[in-house]
């Protein structure tokens, strides 16, 4: 694995936990509502749905079948 790939991999791994912990104070709002969900809940659900995509990219970057 090249150096750049390795760095990209770590960044991809750290984004969702960052968004679900450190970024929570900025997402702690009711408005705007998304699909009826208050913003905080929508934010958490968004990262929950995106996490498989992030992990899938890491899996590919590692060159696994």
């Amino acid at each position, binding site marked *: 694995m090249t150096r750049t790939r390795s760095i990209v991999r770590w960044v991809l*791994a750290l984004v*969702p*936990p960052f968004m*679900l*912990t*450190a970024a*929570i*104070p900025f997402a*702690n*709002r*009711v408005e705007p*509502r998304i*699909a*009826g*969900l*208050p913003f*905080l*809940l929508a934010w*958490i*659900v968004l*990262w*929950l*749905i995106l*996490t*498989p995509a*992030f*992990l*899938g990219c*890491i*899996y590919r970057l590692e060159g*696994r*079948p």
Partner: protein
Amino acid sequence: MTPAATALSIVALVVLGTIGFALYAVRRVEMDPQQYIVGGRSFGTLFLWILLAGEVYTSFTFLGAAGWAYGKGAPAFYILSYGTCGYILGYFFLPKVWRIGKERGLLTSPDFFLDRYGSRTLCVSVAVLQFFLVVPYVTLQLTGLQILLSMAGYGEYHAKIAVGVAFVLIALFVFTAGLRGTAWASVIKDALVLGAVVFAGIFIPMRFFGSPAAMIGKLLEVHPHWLTLSTGTKGLGMTWYVSTVLLTSIGYYMGPHSIAAAYSARDENTIRRNAIFLPIYQIVLLLVFFAGFAALLIVPGLHGSAVDQSFMLVVQRFYPPWVLGAIAGAGALAALVPASALLLGAASVLSKNVIGDLLGIATGDRARTFVTRLLVVVVAAMALYLWLVYKTTLVNLLLLYYNGVTQFMPGFVFALVWRRVGAWGVGAGIGAGMALAAYLAYHSIDLGGINPGFLALLVNVALCAIVTLLAPNRKPAGDAAGS
């Protein structure tokens, strides 16, 4: 038939049917310790997914998450977040644990400590601590079961007897079927729980409010601050939220049953693919929250531990007995299937690491399987006893479980990344972390909202690092360290 008899018969049918199905599925499997405890290390992606989902989504998820949505609001969202973070950690961490387990033929998580740090004392201490942390977690499942069965019985029967019977059944089931049987039982459990949750989280809001979105609109009219976190450092605010997500996601895979599930994978990539797809299952929790919110609007006024009944109370009051029975049956499986994995995890740790390694008894294959089976029954009896005697302090015990098991994580991670760390460092860290977490939780000391287990984890890591740096550099114990 009375409503109670109808509902309870359906619960019995669901539980017995699942046990029968799982026993049928494993009827030709030869049970040596490898097969009994870690499923012969042969589980593929889908089967492992089902087992892990089966272990993680317990009756506490089913009732407790809704109860938190009902009783506390936004702090409940941490349950959605920590699982997701836990899976990301697992993606990187578990394949390495699996590889070492496979190469060295390990069965339990204390085995990992013995192999990496070469200390029998550390291994046995970890085994004993894990055992004592798991028993209250099993006991918690019994409390969930009691709520479900007394709801399904419309308060007409003694739920205690039903819980006892159900638990004896599950102990006998684990005795016979091992980890592979638990995974087969999870197949039915996951399907039924999914159905029950869709019903409770979508159909109940639709019937009473038109749609889940309309329900949330109504909820925000009545309780405008319910779905955001408080900004202060008191109680369950932002600080608590972030530190709790960090603590619980780090401790996510630290139970002995989770390590056993990781060992059961066929290969490393199976574990990675699982970590990729497991977060999707978390969506189920969103629906559980909806069910809790709906209950808050429909049957307000529950307090204390009664909040755990939230949406079950709605089902009991407004739906026919067979619906109640089907949902309580799914919930009962959500208590019994994880309980069986926990029983097996605790029993195998004792039989392998304490009775086998320490006392030198029952080290042959046949004897070890037998002793593990026997211990499953013993652990079950202990949990049942604890449930009958101490059930009021369960919430504290659950916190202790999470705060406690997380303290094993530095021992795992350092074994993979920092070869110089030895048994003394890890042991000192675990000891101090455990003691501090227990002390802080027991005296409920306020740390400005920081989760006490998280503080204990920091002390654990720091102490481990200090002891390691002060200790003379020694030769690494094994040669298969994560390369």
